[in-house]
């Protein structure tokens, strides 16, 4: 515990990790912010059990990922798959094709809960399947298969959307 900085510093350092994971998994800024707050409040209660910053980072990823999966399932039960909000201004100017971005975001939002979080952990956090398996406490083979299936689903959806766009342009 002696090597850990104060709680405020930990929050400043890792807020974007948790918020971003929640935002990409849930597609809603308000819900993502609420979830981020809950994760950090839970960390505040459990901070005495953590020994290093690596441990804190792993704990945050795991807590956020599990909460995201629960929230996605709850949202699906409540009102069906949620749609991504309009991307934040900072993201919009860097993105090449806003339409493509929107379509990809919608496709990611339509993935099943665990597959969605696995995809976000893989491409936002650049985690290897072994690391994702440790975060989600799943077998590595399951993570690999979920990731593979998620990519296949996304590819199929994007191709379908592209072909719809092309046919509507020609007509």
């Amino acid at each position: 515990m002696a090597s850990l900085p104060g709680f405020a510093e930990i929050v400043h350092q890792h807020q974007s990790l948790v918020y971003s994971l929640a935002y990409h998994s849930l597609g809603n800024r308000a819900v993502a912010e609420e979830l981020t707050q809950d994760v950090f409040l839970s960390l505040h209660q459990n901070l005495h059990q953590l020994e290093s910053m690596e441990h804190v980072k792993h704990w945050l990823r795991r807590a956020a990922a599990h909460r995201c999966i629960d929230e996605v399932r709850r949202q699906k039960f409540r009102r069906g798959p949620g749609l991504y909000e309009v991307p934040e201004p900072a993201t919009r100017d860097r993105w090449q094709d806003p339409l493509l971005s929107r379509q990809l975001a919608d496709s990611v939002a339509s993935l099943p809960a665990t597959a969605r979080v696995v995809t976000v952990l893989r491409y936002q956090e650049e985690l290897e399947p072994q690391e994702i398996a440790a975060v989600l406490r799943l077998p590595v083979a399951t993570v690999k298969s979920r990731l593979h299936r998620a990519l296949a689903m996304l590819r199929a959806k994007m191709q379908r959307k592209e072909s719809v766009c092309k046919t509507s342009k020609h007509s």
Partner: protein
Amino acid sequence: MQDLEAQLRLMLRRQDAPAGLAERIVARAEGRRRVGVSTRWLAIAAAVLVMAGIGWQYRQERERRLQAEQTAQQLEFALRLVAERLTKVERQVRGPETRVIHLQTNKQEENLQ
């Protein structure tokens, strides 16, 4: 769809947290800690009050029992006194009668002789 993975990396890159989020989290954590501390003190105060209440009640009960015992002893003493007086009075009242009876018996004996 050139490179799905590259596009995913670009789309899913880290977002900046909203301004003031960290401050809000720290404030909430501080508030919760303060509430936790005050709740703990409230619980301690409640426990002390309950213990004091139980002690007070126990003391009241003991005093009542002592008083009852004292009253019972006083009553017993008073009854004993009354009983002694009554015995004395009874003796005084019965004393001459016994003599009269004795006299009568003596007279009866004289008559018989």
